[in-house]
């Protein structure tokens, strides 16, 4: 929406990352079984919830939430559980980076919202990757 200033661009960026994660988890989940599949389904649900929250926040500011794309170019071919986990970690890294933009806005409540979303995404990324990072969101993009 033209003329909209403030946190809307950062909210839209976070929404775009959530939409990409929702799509990506749909692909990853198809190659997972057991507890991994259950974890992917739980994470997919979390991203759907976050998408709805962000869309409502954007609408409340008089803007139109950007629609999800019909298809996303994935960074790797997913053909087994290992590659599915790598994709999930990659998606969470993207979500973490996207919320970092929200942490820089002037609204203190939005900063906190963005930070808490970063914490959750970084935890999910670490869980899928099996290791932690010193600077989630600030680190160079992971190689899937």
């Amino acid at each position, binding site marked *: 929406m033209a003329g909209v200033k403030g946190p809307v661009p950062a909210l839209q960026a976070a929404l775009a990352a959530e939409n990409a994660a929702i799509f990506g988890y749909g692909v990853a989940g198809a190659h997972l079984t057991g507890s991994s599949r259950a974890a992917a389904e739980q994470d997919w649900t979390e991203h759907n919830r976050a998408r709805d929250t962000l869309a409502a926040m954007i609408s409340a500011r008089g803007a139109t939430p950007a629609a999800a794309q019909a298809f996303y170019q994935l960074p790797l071919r997913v053909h087994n559980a290992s590659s599915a986990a790598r994709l999930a970690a990659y998606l969470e890294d993207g979500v973490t980076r996207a919320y970092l933009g929200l942490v820089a806005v002037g609204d203190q409540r939005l900063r906190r919202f963005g930070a808490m979303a970063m914490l959750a995404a970084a935890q999910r*990324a670490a869980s899928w990757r099996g290791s932690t990072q010193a600077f989630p969101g600030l680190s160079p993009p992971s190689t899937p």
Partner: protein
Amino acid sequence: MLAASAAALPLLLGAAGCRSSDAFTGPDPLAGPPPLGHDVLTLQAVIAAEENMIDLYRVAISGDPGNQRTARTLRSLLGQHEQHLAQLKARLIVPPGARGVRGDGQSPRAPGGSGGGRPPRASTVSISRLRAAERASAADLVRRLATVPPALAQLFASIAASDATHVTVLGG
């Protein structure tokens, strides 16, 4: 057009009944070193907390971490905290002679925190204590990021996210 040398300026100001602090709105050069700003004080507190966290990990590693896998994990997390500390210190610029700084330019250790000003005894540092310290650190950083400039807020948020993942690794 008024022509006056620099030496004549105080005389002109004096004749007009002005003190130097009346004539200029900037900081008074005669007022002594300025107090530290909020950002600097916040950064010093976060650095002190990070140093205490590193102390905890070092003591835990030098004590009995349990097994080799646990020791390896703790060393990895310690390394990330050392990276946090380096980044935080790189952001700290303290004006020379500023009030509220130790003689060596460093901040005092956080009182009552995980370290309390000196390294804790080895026997007191358990995995659960590390986990609690990580959880408290993440919460503290999120609380502080509301009142600092955007770039520092992003660093705090990233470190908080890292600390949160540490909680998970430590079994939280």
